[in-house]
């Protein structure tokens, strides 16, 4: 049984020692991840684990990769992607150059889904998709554009439900266990490590997607990160959140209007 105080001390020392600040994360989920890490590592005590995490940066990076939740899929929440396709992409089309930021992109499924939407609207060539995450190993995976072939059935079903009209399998080459997505899709992507808790704004975008990332943050950190997004959005830009996320409690809420009563997409009004 891990004590609540032990978690607190670990998070505080990790922030001071390694610059990764998880103190603003909601505790129940991160506690569960840390517990799993602790059990897998077969430590004799929580202290022993902490010592190793503090003294070996490489081991700490591994810890970061283990405690973050990276579950994702292509065209997750099909009605959301339908809304992107029908309502948002046509607005983006009016810009001479399109800049999109996927914050917390995990293994990249969301970014490839977006690239497919843009390609089908004949906009990909004038777009650039920045995709960032705190977890380096998911970024490396995302860069390869290779996904398990076993997920293609679900991806393809999602694609069709979200309004896709082509044969999804034309976007990748499958062999044995893997599906490698077409280079023309990844050409316009830039993957980089970026920590939402500590790194600053690095560009201005017309669309920012940050889905199922802030559910892991407490209210204060959510507020801080939405302000970072506000700084990084052009006027009249769009901010897209996960299905169970909202801007309602954020300090930037007053300057945003939800574009659809159901979908979690907001437009900056100033």
């Amino acid at each position, binding site marked *: *049984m891990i004590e609540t105080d032990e978690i607190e001390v670990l998070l505080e020392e990790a922030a001071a020692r390694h610059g990764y600040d998880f103190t603003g994360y*909601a505790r*129940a*989920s991160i*506690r*569960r991840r840390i517990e799993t890490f602790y059990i897998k590592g077969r430590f004799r005590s929580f202290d022993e684990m902490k010592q190793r995490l503090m003294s070996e940066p490489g081991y700490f990076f591994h810890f970061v990769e283990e405690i973050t939740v990276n579950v994702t899929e292509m065209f997750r929440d099909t009605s959301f992607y339908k809304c992107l396709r029908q309502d948002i992409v046509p607005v983006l089309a009016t810009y001479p150059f399109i800049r999109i930021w996927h914050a917390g992109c995990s293994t990249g499924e969301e970014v490839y889904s977006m690239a497919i939407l843009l390609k089908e609207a004949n906009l990909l060539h004038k777009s650039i998709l920045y995709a960032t995450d705190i977890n380096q190993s998911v970024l490396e995976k995302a860069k390869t554009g290779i996904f398990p072939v076993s997920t293609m059935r679900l991806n393809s079903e999602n694609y069709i439900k979200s309004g896709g009209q082509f044969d999804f399998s034309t976007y990748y080459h499958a062999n044995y266990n893997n599906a490698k997505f077409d280079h023309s899709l990844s050409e316009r992507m830039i993957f980089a490590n970026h920590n939402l808790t500590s790194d600053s704004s690095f560009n201005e975008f017309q669309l920012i997607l940050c889905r199922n990332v802030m*559910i*892991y943050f407490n*209210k204060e950190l959510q507020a801080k990160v939405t302000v970072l997004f506000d700084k990084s959005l052009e006027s009249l830009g769009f901010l897209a959140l996960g299905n169970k996320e*909202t801007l309602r409690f954020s300090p930037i809420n007053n300057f945003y209007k939800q574009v659809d009563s159901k979908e979690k997409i907001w437009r900056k009004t100033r």
Partner: protein
Amino acid sequence: MEKDQVAITGGLIVIGGSSGSLDALLLMLPLLKKDFHTPVILVMHRNTTTGTALTELIASRTHLEVKEADEKDKLMPGWIYIAPPDYHLLVEEDGTLSLDISEKVNYCRPSIDVNFASAAVAFKEKLTAVLLSGANADGVEGMMRVKKYGGKNIVQDPQEAIVPFMPEQAVLSCEVDMITGAAGIAAILNEL
């Protein structure tokens, strides 16, 4: 962070169920007394496409307030919170709720185990866990956690359960305070 004193001092009830559990719930919920005070969390395995239908159905059978849980919701007396499809629902020590989209646990999301375990840490001896009908063993590990932290476990009588496997597993593997039918469970909860 400000805390909801009522909820924290008052305790919490978590109810888990899988196939066959809806019948038990629909029998139980109308029997809860008018001034029922303890917040209730419901974690039901269900088809992800059912959306808000479950919330509406439950709301039609109880005088308590019912909502699908949102992240950061503060547990309030007299409310029933339903775990949304395709997320794990966790309880924080400050009496608020969190959602988590991490891997399924034993093919389940929401997972009863995950919910019970987090609630055990947050509410300790003020937690009452209830496990109903079902065809898998989700909830059993959660109930072990509940006991570790001093909470109470109530299991639907397998003889009454439409699918007895889940309550049976709980009775076999963990310390259970009470085994009784749906009406009996309601009576116990009314006395808390």
